């Protein structure tokens, strides 16, 4: 048994890299600094090693050959999932370029809310170390932060040392929309976050009013979405008075139509506050299941985030048209390659055409795919890189054990070579 320290996690999105993990053969145990997201993701038992074709166990070469056959017979392949590490995405895009595939990351409908706002008017954002050292006011919009990233408060808000705050316990936290589910947001000196809840459906209106108040517009109603306008006015004043206010949101939580407009309202009010003479920054939360990794790599290799089509021989970006789930439902493809190296529960949508799955070992299917190749997990079975939520830091993932499970890049490159 060996013990590995300073293990970075690709699962939680906030780049925790202080885990200690014991390795006993193939069995992993998180000894310290685990959390509700990371611990089960690391400790998951490997249940299958052998690729399958038509439900029968075969050698890897045979599974690759079958995958090649399916892709060769396809005139419009769809590559979904796209949940893997940097090298996995590099190989995935090389293959997509080669066979004219559509590439779509599984979280893109959520990520789209951010990209549409960013590509329309831009934003001002910050990163985790700036939050850790500077943030004196955190406004959490539309999300129960602690269930999403359990260690956020411990690592980045209630941290002991801060370069620019005398006492991190004096930081202020405001929840707008959702209430916190636990007590992580309570400061070490017992101070509770201010909580202003509303229904998800009312959030666009609430943030629109918040932005109007930032701009100094008069609001004639007394309340919006059940929140008093005077309370929102106080939020605005606190944001304007903060030395380094941070507004965070998770696009995946904003599951209502045209949520990009709510994101845009948030981003624009942050810009307005900066133009008025105070500092304020956004912190969009994601970084799960390779979503940012996919869009970063697609960004430099294709020029666009991870929802693109190579059907015409060059990358085309359309945040709606190349939604793989819609394409599968509408029969707009004729082969599906699903890549999911992090989460064995994230199985592909059922398609009525040939399906190849490169999945984290342990996937259980409703409908057995034509080809299944169990993958090693980046950061467990092989080294790699994953982007964390602020898009800046690509954490260097470690190999923790020798499982013999192949990497995404290894399998996809083998398929591309054989095409």
């Amino acid at each position, binding site marked *: 048994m060996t013990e590995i320290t*300073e293990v970075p996690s690709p699962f939680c999105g906030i*780049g925790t890299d*202080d885990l200690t993990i014991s390795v006993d053969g193939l069995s992993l145990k998180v000894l310290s600094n685990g959390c509700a997201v990371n611990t089960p993701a690391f400790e998951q038992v490997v249940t299958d090693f052998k690729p399958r074709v038509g439900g029968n166990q075969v050698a890897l070469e045979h599974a690759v050959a079958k995958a090649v056959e399916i892709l060769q017979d396809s005139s419009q392949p769809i590559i979904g999932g796209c949940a893997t590490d*940097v*090298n996995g995405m590099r190989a995935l895009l*090389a293959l997509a*370029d*080669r066979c004219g595939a559509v590439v779509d990351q599984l979280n893109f409908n959520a990520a789209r809310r951010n990209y549409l706002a*960013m*590509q*329309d*008017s*831009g*934003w*001002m*954002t*910050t*990163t*985790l*170390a*700036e939050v*850790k*050292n*500077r943030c004196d006011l955190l406004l959490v919009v539309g999300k129960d932060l602690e269930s999403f990233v359990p260690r956020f408060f411990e*690592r*980045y808000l209630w941290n*002991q*040392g*801060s*370069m*620019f705050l005398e006492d991190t316990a004096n930081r202020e936290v405001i929840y707008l929309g959702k209430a916190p589910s636990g007590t992580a947001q309570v400061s070490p000196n017992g101070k509770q976050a201010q909580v202003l809840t509303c229904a998800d459906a009312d959030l666009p209106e609430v943030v629109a009013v918040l932005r109007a108040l930032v701009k100094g517009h008069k609001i004639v109603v007394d309340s919006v979405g059940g929140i008093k306008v005077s309370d929102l006015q106080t939020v605005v004043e606190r944001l304007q008075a903060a*030395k*380094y206010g941070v507004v965070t949101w998770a696009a995946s939580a904003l599951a209502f139509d045209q949520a990009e407009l709510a994101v845009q309202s948030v981003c624009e009010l942050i810009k307005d506050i*900066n133009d008025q*003479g*105070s*500092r304020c*920054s956004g912190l969009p939360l994601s970084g799960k299941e390779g979503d940012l990794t996919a*869009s*970063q790599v697609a*960004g*430099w*290799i*294709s*020029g*666009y*985030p991870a929802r693109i089509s*190579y059907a015409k*021989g*060059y*990358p*085309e*970006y359309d945040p709606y048209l190349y939604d793989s789930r819609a394409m599968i439902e509408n029969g707009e493809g004729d082969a599906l390659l699903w890549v999911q190296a992090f989460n064995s529960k994230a199985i592909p949508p059922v398609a009525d055409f040939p399906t190849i799955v490169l999945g984290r070992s342990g996937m259980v299917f409703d409908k057995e795919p034509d080809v299944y190749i169990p993958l090693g997990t980046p950061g467990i079975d092989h*080294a790699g*890189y994953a982007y964390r939520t602020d898009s*800046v*830091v*690509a*954490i*260097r993932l470690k190999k923790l054990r020798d499982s013999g499970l192949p990497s995404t890049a290894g399998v996809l490159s083998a398929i591309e070579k054989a095409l």
Partner: protein
Amino acid sequence: MLIKLTGGTVYDPAGGIDGQKRDIYIQDGRIVDRPAADVKIDQEYDLTGKVVMSGAIDMHTHIGGGKGNIARILLPEDHRSDPVIRTNLTRSGSGHAMPSTYVTGYRYAEMGYTTAFEPAVLPVNARQAHMEMSDIPILDKGGYAMLGSDDYLLRMLTAKKDQKAVNDYVAWTLQASKCIGIKVVNAGGISAFKFNQRKLDLDEKNAHYDVTPRQILQTLAIAVKELGVPHPLHVHGCNLGVPGNVDTTLDTIQGVGGLPMHLTHIQFHSYGTEGDFKFSSGAAQIAEAVNKHKNITIDVGQILFGQTITASGDNMRQHANHKHAHPNKWVCMDIECDAGCGVVPFKYKDQNFVNALQWAIGLEIFLLVNDPWRVFLTTDHPNGAPFTTYPHLIRLLMDKSFRNDMLATIHPEAQKMTTLAAIDREYTLNEIAIMTRAGAAKLIGLKDRGGLTAGNWGDITVYTENADRQKMFEKPDYVFKDGELVVKDGQIVHVKWGTTHIVKPDYDTSVEKDLKHYFDRYLTMKMGNFKISDDEFTEDGRGSLTAHPLQGGAQ
């Protein structure tokens, strides 16, 4: 494999050859002396009537790293206008202002460039910069690590740590981020913006730290020199784009006290406040100062008209300029107690007075600085214009009548505010070769690159002589990279992978004691996970590291 390039007219300033006929021999990737008469030549290229130079080196171009990728993602409409289709040899991608990585490599190579340096590598984002650059085919590459607004250095300076301690930190940073030089962007200003300062002059203190930009520049310039890093401190000055900043720039030149210093995209720092619009050219003063101070080198950061996108570490100035964004969308970021970035799309217009004069100022600087070994051809890609405009820029420098024709079309008030029409100078081919090859290799300290004498690597570009210099430089006949033919008639014929150039100055390993504590207490990753290891470059089977010698007996 022995290759002979026969009868070309060679411009090799590093070897002292200025337009003479020479045969060049390449064996196993390197240029070799003429072999014995009985040695068999495997392949011969008849270069009679052709112009031969070494492969061009872009010493300042934003080709890798976070802000560049933000720039790519921010402007899908720009990419849509320039799709790049896959071929049997090359990958697909997208082009124009901030091309995708593969397209960057192909387009540089197709213009005869074989090496390019990313000038703004945030140490915390260095992994991304190198990952992007390792997806740029054909070119050699490297980066300059950004310091000067990182809290660690500012804390050291405030605590009056000695120069030796700073040197150790600088050397550690170079090794941890795998870079070849040190860059300062708006010294201390990126940090000051986080404390809500909106401008920072050369002698103005950071609101939190007891430090001025002048101190930062001096300390880092000394560190770079004492460590023996060949490339002088690479400085993006204070007050970028601010009318009147010519005084700051002159003060920066004088204030560094004779230490080697490279002032980058100096065009953006050469503005006066004269005239009806309170915006004028400071080019003559800048050129005079550069001519006089032999410790100073510059690159111009020429603007050329059209749509582009600016991506800079200088979030303070980028934020101040966001009102000029075209289209109106922009991104600013504070980054990891390390640095920041600002990404603002720009459309430079010849009928806009300021833009027109910026164009003229850049050209004035090129033409008034008299030593081509100390001025370098850049557009600060993509900030002044995409790198694909270089052939046009070369024509502007080499062809006075073309230049004056262009001048006659810009905003009339800008024409009145520039002395450009009165400047007769035309760059020679030898001077172009200095600026884009020999001088750049010397400035960065690249061993065995940028020259055509025996021992150099076989990075060679062959052009057909053409009075239209834009046409000539747009489409080389041949480009060799490490002795392999990669471009023929302006088209990629072979794809290979270049190396990453670095320096490895020594440091006292005890520097890591403090750093480890700092990382644990204040940052969000472990020091051990921050440092980039050598095998991260080689594990994909196509990358490599090339460490260059240090100067002045430094280890």
